[in-house]
């Protein structure tokens, strides 16, 4: 009867694929689910911005500028009378896509470089570490100005530049993790079965080093969303009339607005915080979900 009990306990999760199981664990992580729901709402709201907002993001109304939040303009208007709510939604498109895509680029490069350096070691490692040091010390300002000059300003280029400049930290992290994992016996076991290096990296190594990398990635999303604001200051990033959360914050960079028109800076700031927080919770959830050993429901109670 005890055996039967064990069996039924297992049968409950019958045919658990790696991802199906992860999804189930993820949904049991309360904060992660909340984060995912919030994030989904934000993303959907941004995608369907034209249906939700009554105003266009760039519809100016010079006579109705600097209005506080109210019935007509839910979150008020800015210095040229544009509807803040609409700008938040449309701005989210830029900020979130910059955040996601740039981080995706940097994570892809970083994980790849880190994995290769860590797994193969030796001269490859030496060379890649040099590369990492080099990119780490690049002055972003110069690179960005030059980059805009050569390829022209656009959101796509912003993502590219940020992605190309911010991968070294993830690469270092990955490398360190892999170094400590490389000689684990299950890797040897995989090798002895004739598994190819690419499969070993993808199936055996990456899932096991993901957790610290996920922390870095979620924090990077925040950094990147903010970085976009500084970039638009330099001419890269969202250009003048277009909104992004970052440049909405930047536009509020005067003492008068800070003091007497908080509706211009609190919403974009809050959106960044909420988005980043949700992403982080999702990241936590993902991490726990990919770790079968994590006690379900242990997090976020």
């Amino acid at each position, binding site marked *: 009867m005890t*055996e039967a009990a*064990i069996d039924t306990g297992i049968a409950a999760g019958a045919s658990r694929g790696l991802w199906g199981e992860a999804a189930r664990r993820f949904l049991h992580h309360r904060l992660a689910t909340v984060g995912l729901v919030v994030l989904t709402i934000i993303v959907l709201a941004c995608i369907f911005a034209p249906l939700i907002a009554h105003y266009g993001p760039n519809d100016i109304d010079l006579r109705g500028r600097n209005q506080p939040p109210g019935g007509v303009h839910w979150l008020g208007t800015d210095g040229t009378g544009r509807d803040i709510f609409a700008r938040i939604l449309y701005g989210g498109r830029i900020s979130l896509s910059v955040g996601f895509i740039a981080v995706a680029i940097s994570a892809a490069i970083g994980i790849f470089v880190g994995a290769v350096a860590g797994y193969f070691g030796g001269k490859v490692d030496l060379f890649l570490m040099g590369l990492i040091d080099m990119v780490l010390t690049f002055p972003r300002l110069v690179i960005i100005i030059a980059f805009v000059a050569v390829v022209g300003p656009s959101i796509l280029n912003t993502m590219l530049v940020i992605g190309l400049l911010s991968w070294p930290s993830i690469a270092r992290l990955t490398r360190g993790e892999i170094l400590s994992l490389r000689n684990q016996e*299950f890797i040897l076991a995989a090798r002895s079965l004739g598994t190819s290096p690419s499969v070993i990296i993808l199936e*055996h190594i990456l899932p096991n080093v993901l957790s610290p990398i996920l922390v870095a990635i979620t924090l990077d999303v925040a950094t990147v969303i903010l970085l976009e604001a500084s970039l638009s200051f330099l001419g890269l990033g969202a250009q003048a009339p277009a909104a992004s959360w970052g440049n909405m914050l930047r536009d509020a960079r005067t003492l008068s607005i800070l003091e007497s028109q908080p509706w211009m800076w609190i919403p974009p700031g809050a959106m960044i915080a909420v988005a980043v927080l949700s992403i982080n919770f999702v990241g936590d959830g993902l991490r726990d979900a990919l770790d*079968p050993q994590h006690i379900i429901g242990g997090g976020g109670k």
Partner: protein
Amino acid sequence: MMHADTLARDKVEAAGQGPLLDVQGLSVAFGPEGRAVYAVNDVSFQLAEGESLAIVGESGSGKSVTMQTLMGLIRKPPGRVTSGRALFRGRDLLAMPDSELRQIRGRDIAMIFQDPMSSLNPVLTIGLQLTEALREHQGLSEREAERQALDMLDLVGIANAAQRMQAFPHQFSGGQLQRIGIAMALVCKPSILIADEPTTALDVTIQAQIVELVARLQKELGMAIIWISHDLSLVAGFVERVAVMYAGSIVETAPVERLFAAPTHPYTIGLLNSIPSLTAANTRLVPIKGAPPNVTLAPTFCAFASRCDHAVARCREAKPVLEPVVSGHAAACWRWRELQGFPRAPGSVMATAQASGAAPNEPLLTVSGLKVHFPIRRGVLRRQVGAVRAVDGVSFEVLRGETLALVGESGCGKSTTGRAVLGLERPSEGEILFEGRDYAEATAERLKERRRDMQMVFQNPFGSLNPRMTVGRIIGEGLRAQKIGTRASREARVSDLLALVGLREAMRDRYPFELSGGQRQRVGIARALAGSPKFIIADEPISALDVSIQAQIVNLLDDLKARLGLTYLFIGHDLSMIRYLSDRVAVMYLGRIVETGTTASVFGTPLHPYTRALLSAIPVPDPKAGGTRRRIVLGGGVPDPSKPPSGCHFHPRCPRASKICAQVAPEPRDFGSSASGQHLVTCHHAGEV
């Protein structure tokens, strides 16, 4: 506060009555009601001043949890003590606030943990770790604390202690760390020492040293000991009383002689039966059938019932309590009275395991002059300044269908040899012929092919399974990598393999951490079998397991050998098990093989001094023999393999060494006879009696 405390204690001591530790009805559960794990159920025992008690039982039976609860070390939540008292000198450990318990921890009750490496803080010097408790509890000055710590290190036999106080844990060998762990527990001269399986991870020679050490210290310091183990033979020699735990409860407790002589509980009987006997060779091991208990069920029945041959309806309905059998001997079984007449070893054991077909004479694998050196690089240019000579000239043959055992101290190069054979390590020198072919320069494709024929069961049952893959994927990995069959046929094969190694189909979707050690080990075996190899290197597949599970696995390997005609290279250090399962034995010392021969001749007439020392350290599951056997305890530790001694590697530790040993490396000589087969010994003095 402190004052009143001392007073209270003095009073109890003066009264001189009652046991030192009295645990009454302790129950511990983990997790919330409804989904709880009932780890400890109604455990009671007493420990008198200066007494030594062993707690044995299967893995997961609640031994560690019981002890950690006493020490206030379990994490709450999820842990909770659901009932019970633990009176230490009359004061309830479970009821006192943590600040008060803190005064007792370390000073009055000290604990040695299972894994020495991970229970020492890696970033603090052992000096600091040794003295901090002294300074905390006795307010000693740094100097004084250091002096006492030094004494203690000397006592546990750490050479050059004064200097080593400044060293960090990673600079010690496993055996040394274990001794430091003991010293750390002992510095405050506690009244009770709890040793939680302190030797499971160590090999026999060191295990022997430590058991001896603790037994001696107990006498010298007059403390009480609780020794937790799953190895009955180990504790047999030196404890006074044994308590057997199963599924969170104590099922039997008796003085040690009595337990071995007249075990009463069916579980205890099973446990004793699974121990291979040193005297009766080649009999099949008798494991306890079934799987370890499920402790997620409320303890309302006899947890052993499902595995018990004698279980009746009653066993499944109510939980038996400990009943005295004779004075000092109690058992928790409804039927102990009826069972007393049963023979201890049920039924005559099945005949020899060597039922395999072909006569083992044609070599499958020939290793000659194998050397594996790991370069040590230093300096700006990473010049190679030396090498770890992990394997330093090893030659042996494995014949088709036989089991060759490779034994030797930890770090002597056994695993490296195995890995080199498999091609996971590039040999520095030497030749490895598999089925007559050398794969040294083989292409990746050819190597992949060889890997179908040759597989390895890795040493560490947890570390060798990817924690994020399900059992099914792990077993099927080789099939996928070798592109054997279709998806469906691979699935079917995995099912077959699961059945073959005795795992239920439902295990397929479990993760390694959800498996018990034995199950994990079987997954490793199933993975190795997946590609239908001809040859398996089994690297200490059982060393981390308890006896009954060891027995299961050994039987499995035997069955497979018989059914599939497999050939094994079996790496291990548990000699009693090796004696049982191998056809031939090769003894390794510091990168070289010192003695090779049939099992019978090596165990019967060991010729190399090192082999003799090894054999003498095998624990005997007999309390009477334990005291009388002459153990050859080797001095010092294994030398640094990057600077092996000149001549015969063993000479610095050899009781028989002479001048020539330090100068000339001996050549192997055959001492076998036609009856005993080849028996090679690499010793200048072999054969001189």
